[in-house]
């Protein structure tokens, strides 16, 4: 093949989720020639599935709230492993980022005096989540979509970027994509590229993530030599559906607990009171009476343990199920029907009501839900500079779930949507600045492209090979059982041996049919990314010999503040294709912020 469809842009954004669209809106507003590429149709990105809300210290419900409290909550939620500067910028800028959405048509639920209403969520000291019922992500994504359409940002839909291109100096200068629709290839030249490709959840079997979350962005960055950070930290959301089997993993929003839902085991025991960790004991109710009073009087009472950060709740549920106190389908009960009126439930949680009614034939206003942990979010990701979102590769930027550092070892609910807005904007801005300062010409090398294309087409040549779906299932089974919510040395070691075997198998994958909209083929390509990123996860998890946030080691159940509490795991890929790991000390927080964490504050 000698000619290929080619487009040139100043800024190319990979991903049309909240982060990608916010970046595009910014880049376009600054006058750069901007394009977005995404794997599915515009408006379908994973962000639409976010439910609960977007965290921002607007102080509309609690005037006491401000960025410092939000910052403190975020750092504590991440068990102090967060990049402090990212957490600070995030807390400071989130309110403006949320409010500007209203310029573009967002309609958040209102307080009685007409401002944006905020709701409670786990780990947030004050009611802080701006929301629209339980479809906040949809509102956010649609608003940004409308804005970008209004700005005429160019969008390439159903196009998968599978390689980044670099010039001789290692600067990123383009990307290679594949039209899902017809299987043809397309090249993009760009002065700077922003990766906003979302998560990696499809590596695990039980997951709330969609088919798109195949770690592409993380892998693209890895392959160009960028550092990844904290890849061992994957959040298992405590409440996913467990039945019917086809719905397994689908998320049940934390809003259910925020609005009064409680967790019970099969003996009808409200077990969360048995799992309050010392770290949070001071701010958590220790009697049922006190917990129940909190919903109405948040000043004088402490919050119920159901609203502990997600890692704590997920571990507790996991322990209950393991101890044989689970529900018939292997979960526990999440009960709101006995606590709130049907009208209240339907008004506050309409899409949950809908989801259970239609998928499980369960009326949540009458029966408790059955739930269990599900893979939800990756805290780790591409290592970026806090101010500029630049990665360690020149010309390459990253934001959103694909970037790491902001959430430390565990993300608080609602902090992702605000992360997308804050760092999406920054990514757009600094990508434009980079593109302006570096007017390198972005010629893309045809021979390199041809090599990449050949590799991508290889599965068509093979006969009687392995099915990509089978290999994917094998990967998911491996990761679910060996690197799931609870980990141990021996299992992780087994996984490190198993993954290279699977990678070998990838070379034998064969696909049927032609190049037109062929999901089997797309899966084969996605597996490239997933296998490498799974390896990063396992290697980092093996190295971190402690339990912290989204990383729980059976063999090291305590956190280790003296060593592992002070380092990040950094993974990258050497020239030989092997994945290397090094520990790096956390950036030091300045004293004026440290004060916020002293006793009694």
């Amino acid at each position: 093949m000698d000619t290929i469809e080619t487009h040139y842009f100043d800024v190319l954004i990979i991903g049309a989720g909240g982060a990608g669209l916010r970046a595009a809106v910014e880049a376009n507003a600054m006058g750069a020639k901007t394009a977005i590429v995404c794997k599915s149709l515009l408006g379908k990105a994973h962000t639409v599935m976010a439910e609960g809300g977007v965290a921002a210290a607007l102080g509309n419900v609690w005037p006491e709230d401000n960025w410092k409290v939000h910052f403190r909550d975020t750092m504590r939620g991440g068990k102090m492993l967060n990049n402090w500067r990212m957490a600070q910028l995030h807390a400071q800028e989130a309110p403006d980022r949320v409010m500007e959405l209203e310029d573009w048509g967002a309609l958040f639920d209102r307080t009685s005096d007409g401002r944006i209403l905020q709701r409670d969520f786990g780990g947030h000291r004050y009611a802080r989540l701006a929301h629209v019922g339980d479809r906040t992500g949809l509102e956010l994504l649609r608003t940004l979509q409308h804005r970008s359409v209004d700005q005429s940002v160019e969008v390439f839909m159903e196009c998968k970027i599978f390689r980044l291109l670099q010039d001789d100096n290692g600067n990123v200068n383009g990307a290679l994509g594949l039209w899902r629709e017809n299987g043809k290839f397309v090249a993009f030249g760009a002065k700077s590229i922003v990766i906003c490709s979302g998560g990696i959840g499809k590596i695990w079997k039980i997951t709330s993530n969609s088919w798109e979350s195949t770690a592409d962005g993380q892998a693209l960055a890895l392959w160009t030599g960028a550092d990844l950070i904290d890849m061992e930290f994957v959040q298992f959301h405590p409440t996913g559906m467990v039945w019917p089997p086809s719905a397994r993993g689908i998320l049940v929003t934390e809003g259910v607990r925020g609005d009064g839902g409680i967790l019970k085991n099969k003996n009808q025991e409200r077990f969360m009171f048995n799992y309050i960790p010392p770290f949070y004991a001071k701010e958590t109710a220790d009697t049922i009476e006190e917990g129940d009073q909190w919903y109405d009087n948040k000043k004088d009472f402490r919050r119920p343990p159901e609203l502990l950060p997600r890692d704590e709740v997920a571990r507790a549920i996991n322990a209950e199920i393991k101890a044989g106190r689970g529900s018939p389908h292997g979960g526990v009960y999440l009960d709101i029907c006995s606590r709130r009126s049907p009208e209240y439930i339907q008004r506050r949680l309409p899409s949950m009501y809908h989801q259970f009614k239609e998928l499980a034939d369960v009326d949540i206003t009458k029966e408790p839900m059955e739930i269990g942990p599900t893979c939800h979010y990756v805290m780790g990701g591409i290592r970026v500079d806090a101010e500029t979102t630049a990665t360690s590769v020149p010309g390459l930027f990253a934001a959103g779930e694909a970037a790491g550092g902001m959430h430390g070892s565990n993300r608080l609910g609602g902090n992702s949507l605000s992360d997308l807005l804050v760092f999406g904007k920054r990514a757009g801005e600094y990508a434009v600045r980079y593109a302006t300062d570096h007017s390198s010409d972005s010629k893309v090398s045809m021979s390199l492209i041809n090599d990449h294309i050949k590799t991508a087409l290889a599965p068509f040549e093979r006969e009687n090979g392995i099915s990509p779906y089978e290999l994917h299932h094998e990967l998911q089974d491996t990761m679910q059982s060996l690197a799931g919510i609870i980990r141990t040395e021996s299992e992780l070691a087994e996984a490190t041996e198993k993954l290279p075997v699977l990678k070998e198998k990838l070379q034998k994958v064969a696909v049927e049919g032609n190049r037109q909209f062929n999901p089997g083929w797309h899966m084969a390509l996605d597996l490239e990314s997933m296998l490498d990123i799974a390896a990063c996860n396992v290697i980092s998890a093996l190295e971190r010999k402690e339990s912290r946030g989204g990383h729980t080691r059976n063999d090291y159940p305590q956190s280790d503040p003296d060593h592992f509490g002070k380092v990040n795991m950094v993974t990258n890929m050497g020239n030989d294709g092997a994945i290397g790991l090094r520990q790096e000390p956390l950036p030091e927080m300045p004293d004026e912020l440290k004060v916020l964490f002293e006793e009694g504050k």
Partner: protein
Amino acid sequence: MTTLNTEPDAPVPVGIEANKVRGGPPRSEVLRKDKWWIQPLAIFTGLFAFIVYATWAALRNGHFYAGNVGRDYLSPFYSPCLTNSCTNNGYAWSDWSWWRLSPAIPILIFPLSFRLSCYYYRKSYYRSFWLSPPSCAVPDAGSTKAGGPRSKYSGETKFPLILQNIHRYTWYFAVIFAGILTFDAIAAFRFPNGIGMGLGTLIFVVNACLIWAYTLGCHSCRHLCGGGLRKFSASPSRHFVWKNFVSKLNEHHQLFAWLSLFWIAFADFYTWLVSTGAIHDPRFF
């Protein structure tokens, strides 16, 4: 080459024949497996039956008033009383003795135009009479024939259907008529020897209620009473009426459209029965 670059103004074939334009299963084949034709058929039957009855009732020009048997019951088809033929209690609205045709004809123009341009009835006759579409995901009649007489469709953008847009004016008259029918219902309490109530009285009261329920649930009414506002908070009382009253009725507009339609015919029929002496109207008090 991007999927986004279709040209909206490019010439496109008219009519959707077979698989020429879009591919996929043949268009003439209806894939729905349920009995999708039952609803349009039932509505057709219902409306058709009413048309037949109404034609008879309107042309009957007699026995529309039961004054002859001591009951102040005036058929809604003939209300207000234009001729002096319902004067035994002395409340004819005018004396149209020069009018030779049935007085129902000038009267019925108003409710007829109201109902014909009603958003609900439009839906039902577009579906069950004009078959456009007969049911959801079932092709418009004639649309699968390219170049055929019904391959083009202009909806309510051209004469005569663009006239549907004056629905609110028919509503203004409908309010007057609802008032008149309310008057009739009150008048039905009048008996030669004072106040009383018969079965017919009850029928007329129900009739007036149903007419109001239908008329006030009208979409134009919903717009005029408050729905047309951008900002409800600036007019709390209109919002109250819109939300708690008109919108509530509007949700059941279809139901009231049918109930009131049936009941009008029934009230007329009952009046006819009583007036001809076919039955005796029982008196409650």
